[in-house]
């Protein structure tokens, strides 16, 4: 049983199902990546794991307990962190206030966590008094990840963290994500840049039309000729 596991997930927003018997799991300290063509239900699968999609079938197990019935905000309290793809920072608030809001559920002192985030993303320390809306795309993503880290989540879920950033910034973000995983955090992310993402992944899920198509280690998926041909451009 994985640390976080979405099992046999079936469901959608309306009458039609988007996910069909889809299963996704991740272990502590591991990076799991969901890849696949556009409209494969990658983000939907992740939202389902986080409780943002009503499921008709299947269940979500996290840290040994069934969380299927919990609302997203209740899962945050349990130790799940989520970084949405867009609108993932409070644009009118400063970087530091963003981090403070990330730690809203905590009642203990948060200054250690803030300096931890600043260690991870030094640029944020420089810009801590600036409204997050004034930052560049890559810096905003750092604020978004930093905000989610403030609760010390046991699992961090990232929905396309590198969407719209330059290749250099992308590499840097991936490096940071590896660092976070080393802190024994389970990382589940959806990525458009499949090749680069699978390179850092311990586990990869290739989804097609809401179904599991291939599941293997990142390395094995990269080496699989079928996957290469269909999803990685040769």
């Amino acid at each position, binding site marked *: 049983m994985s640390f976080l596991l979405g099992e046999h997930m079936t469901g959608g927003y309306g009458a039609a199902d988007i996910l069909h018997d889809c299963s996704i799991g991740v272990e502590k300290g591991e990076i799991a990546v969901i890849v696949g063509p556009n409209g494969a239900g990658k983000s939907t699968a992740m939202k389902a794991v986080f409780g943002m999609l009503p499921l008709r079938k299947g269940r979500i197990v996290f840290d040994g307990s069934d969380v299927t019935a919990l609302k997203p905000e209740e899962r*945050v309290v349990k130790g799940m962190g989520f970084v949405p793809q867009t609108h993932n920072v409070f*644009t009118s608030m400063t970087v530091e206030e963003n981090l403070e809001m990330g730690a*809203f559920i905590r009642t203990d002192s948060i200054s250690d966590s803030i300096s931890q985030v600043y260690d991870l993303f030094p640029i944020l320390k420089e810009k801590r008094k600036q409204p997050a809306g004034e930052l560049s795309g890559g810096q905003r993503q750092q604020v978004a990840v930093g905000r989610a880290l403030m609760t010390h989540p046991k699992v961090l879920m990232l929905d396309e963290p590198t969407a719209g950033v330059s290749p250099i910034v992308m590499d840097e973000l991936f490096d940071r994500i590896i660092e976070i995983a080393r802190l024994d955090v389970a990382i589940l992310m959806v990525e458009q840049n499949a090749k680069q993402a699978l390179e850092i992944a311990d586990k990869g899920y290739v989804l097609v039309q809401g179904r599991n198509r291939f599941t293997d280690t990142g390395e094995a998926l990269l080496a699989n000729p079928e996957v290469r041909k269909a999803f990685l451009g040769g």
Partner: protein
Amino acid sequence: MVDVFNALTVLGNFLIIPGLTYGSQLALGALGVTLVYGVLRFSNFAHGETMAFGAMITILVTWGLQAASISIQPLPTALLAIPVGIVVTVVLTLLIDRFVYRYHRDRKANPVIFLIVSIGVMFFMGGLIRFIIGPGDQIFFDGTRFILKAREFKQMTGLDEGLSLRMTQAVTIITAIIIVAAMFWFLNHTRTGKSMRAYSDNENLALLSGINPDRVVMITWILVAALATIAGTLYGLDKSFKPFVYMQLLLPIFASAIVGGVGNPLGAIAGGYVIAFSELILTFAYKKIILYLGPETLELDSLVQILGTDYKIAVSFIILVIVLIIKPTGLFSGKTI
């Protein structure tokens, strides 16, 4: 030189002091409107009546205190009654939210529906107010009327023109400064205040951060009810309390909020003074000023007004239209608190 001082005194007495007073009242009103817009995302047409309701409760308590000969001379007794007014208004507002707005919030209703619902609430509250206190004028001011009398000012300075400062004007301006400062401190430096700003900025992310939306909504209504009660009471003290007047105040209040950038508290305050001074500057009779500053031989038949005072209300309407055409986001680009 004396003429210049006389002219300045006329300006101070009839334009600047009344403008600051009226501007403070509008600013407090607009702050309430802007909070509702920023957090609950609709234009609250019932805000004028909320002000009237808060003022009414304050008046009833003031009468009780007066009957019991409790006073805080030289300040008006109403100041002592305001806390009770706030509490009762908070209770009513929360009840209305529980039984009216929450239903639509749970359904994620369109802001237009909220707006129309708030018009319904406006009529309900208006009816309630007239049912309890009647439609007539109520005067509840007591305490010392003037801090500085025009006659004393003339004796002090030897000028022909007098400058007077009424107690209600001083109380209004000082209270507004204190309330606004407290409000900004709350929004920028407390956890709860920041959570309100976060919720207003990005509702979904606030939810993901574990901010409880019900709590944010409740605190917003408490603040709005308190602001409305204070604004309504100050206005009633300064002019007089007349239920229908508060409905008419809605236009300049909304104009203030929109001019400043609706959803932006700083904008609401700036907007309040912009609207107040625009109204006064455009309807001010400049005759005396010109006579003092112009050549000795000058004679004027008219009052030299740009607009008659009857058109006062039109001024905020015109400003509102101009802002909506030229810069709909307002001076301070609103939307979030």
